[in-house]
């Protein structure tokens, strides 16, 4: 009809399917579960299977769903504001995640930089070495840290042997262990995007700077760093976002005073059996994370446009 549509190549059924797949994936594995959680967050606790009321019964049709909606209440969200435990947990999680991200960046940048500057023939091997730990279960790797950090662990044994300390350092079950765990686990997520952006960097820019008498540190500061910023941002978000909701690392390596929202949510869900309140905690957590996720998306889009 209109010339506009004729200009565009017509999509075949397969083409549409290709586009639909990611959306379908998102619907089934993200939106649908999210709505279930969202819905439960408006229910109340009950001694039953499942332990909340009201439950959806699709057999009641639209009227049933309408009924269920009319009994929904915001009580659980109000509850979250009344007890300072929750916002303290959110805040503490964000803090721990932010500090870990910063440390990961300090550790990861030199690694990525070294990889990008290494001879071309080495790079696939180095890349492989970064990815290799993923071949082992995440849980087992975190457990391994218990063996390293505990009082009689490898680290303390070594330090005692060298004579640097005469009392074992208590690291396990402290926040320090949580930082170590997060930095270790998420390091590849930061190194990989950073390496990608550093590798693309045009060496001739640095050569020009050097020719014009610019010292290497200044060249790094003026050229390398600014050009690697997209990689820094992408990597940092990839560390920060999952770290906020981290549960396994604080649970296994952290102490009892490690306050993180993942653990608070666990207590709410398992000990209090309060699915509605824990759902509300999860919904708020997602809302908090939406901000960095949107920022991340924006940045990614800008980077893509720049390339185009």
């Amino acid at each position, binding site marked *: 009809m209109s010339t506009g549509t004729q200009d565009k190549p017509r999509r075949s059924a397969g083409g549409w399917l290709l586009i639909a797949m990611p959306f379908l994936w998102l619907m089934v594995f993200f939106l649908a579960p999210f709505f279930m959680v969202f819905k439960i967050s408006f229910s109340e606790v009950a001694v*039953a299977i499942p332990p909340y009321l009201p439950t959806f019964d699709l057999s009641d049709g639209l009227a049933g769903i309408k009924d269920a909606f009319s009994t929904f209440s915001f009580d659980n969200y109000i509850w979250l504001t009344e007890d300072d*435990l929750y916002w303290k947990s959110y805040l503490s999680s964000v803090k721990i995640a932010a500090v870990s991200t910063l440390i990961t960046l300090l550790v990861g940048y030199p690694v990525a930089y070294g990889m990008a500057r290494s001879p071309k023939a080495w790079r696939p091997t180095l890349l492989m070495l970064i990815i290799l730990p993923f071949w082992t279960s995440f849980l087992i790797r975190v457990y391994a840290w218990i063996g390293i950090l*505990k009082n*009689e662990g490898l680290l303390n044994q070594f330090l005692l042997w060298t004579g640097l300390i005469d009392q074992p350092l208590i690291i396990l079950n402290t926040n320090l262990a949580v930082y170590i765990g997060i930095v270790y686990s998420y390091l590849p997520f930061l190194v990989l995007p950073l390496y990608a952006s550093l590798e693309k960097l045009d060496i001739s820019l640095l050569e020009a700077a050097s020719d014009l008498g610019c010292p290497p540190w200044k060249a790094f500061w003026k050229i390398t760093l600014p050009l690697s910023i997209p990689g820094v941002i992408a990597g940092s978000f990839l560390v920060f976002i999952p770290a906020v909701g981290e549960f396994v690392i604080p649970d296994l390596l952290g102490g*009892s005073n490690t306050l993180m929202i993942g653990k608070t949510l666990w*207590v709410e869900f398992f000990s209090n*059996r309060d699915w509605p309140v824990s759902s509300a905690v999860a919904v708020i957590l997602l809302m908090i994370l939406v901000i960095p996720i949107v920022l991340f998306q924006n940045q990614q889009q800008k980077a893509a446009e720049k390339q185009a």
Partner: protein
Amino acid sequence: MIKRILSGVAVLGLMAGSALAQDRVVNVYNWSDYIDDSILTDFTKETGIKVVYDVFDSNEVLETKLLAGGTGYDVVVPTGTFLGRQIQAGVFQKLDKSKLTNLSNMWKDIELRLEKYDPGNEYAINYMWGTTGIGYNVEKVKAAIADAPVNSWDLVFKPENAAKLADCGIFMLDTPEEMVPAALNYLGLDPDSNSAEDIEKAGELLKSIRPYVRKFHSSEYINALANGDICLAVGWSGDILQARDRAAEANNGVTVEYTIPKEGALMWFDNMAIPADAPHVAEAHEFLNYIMRPEVAAKASNYIFYANGNKASQEFIDKEVLEDPAIYPNEETVKKLYTVSTKPAKVSRVQNRVWTEVKSGN
């Protein structure tokens, strides 16, 4: 042609039938370190029923799975207080007592105490029972405190004592349902109190010793005690006795002892029950009946150092287990033991909130 298809279907049906006969299965979900593995292999040898065995270390995890429904488990082992609530929620099916011919072996006293959670003993049989007391490293405690009050809760609930033990390490069970009653009992209040005010007081006591507790965890203390990593754990009787045994076997210079403090301790019951949606009900009953055999129950107790609810098994239990007052407390000690009831949701929330406050300082 049709005939051939039909016979094909018949053959398939037969194959499925025989496959089922071969693959009789029972899915058991029990506490970690809580059975002698040979009991499971013997059961399979005798009945041909394969045991798929899975473990947990907290009632909370078990309960959440049960309340979500569709666990696929045929036999689960909740503690009394949890059992009570789960029965109310409709999690379990009534036992078919006609299939449980060994029920007569059970210990009437224990059955009577279980009625608090399961009136009429309709849903569960007792597997093991025990106490929540103090396990300690004899040498390390002696080194830290000259005349340590090892037979009293003073050892851990008095801040000056806890402070002295902090460096060598204190572990505590991560379960408000047991630690709050212990604190209440120490304060001279009703350990089964539902009053928020009382629970807050217990919280204050626990907070006063909180800085000296290295970790709240419900299973790690076995190894930690046995290896000499810590000098004190508030934990379950049999677990601490297992630590005692492991330390003795390792011959690592660590001596672990268990004490039921003179102020009293919690007596709890772990019970086997069959979920309402269990896929293998018949096999589950066979398993329960097998566990109730005197020799089998005795074997389990001999291995895990917990007292069982099976009176007839006592003649098969090793002397050092049966006569150990830490496992089978004498009558005088039993009088000091208290039980707690299933808590209403509101009380449970207060307890858990206080517990979070204690643990995280928030």
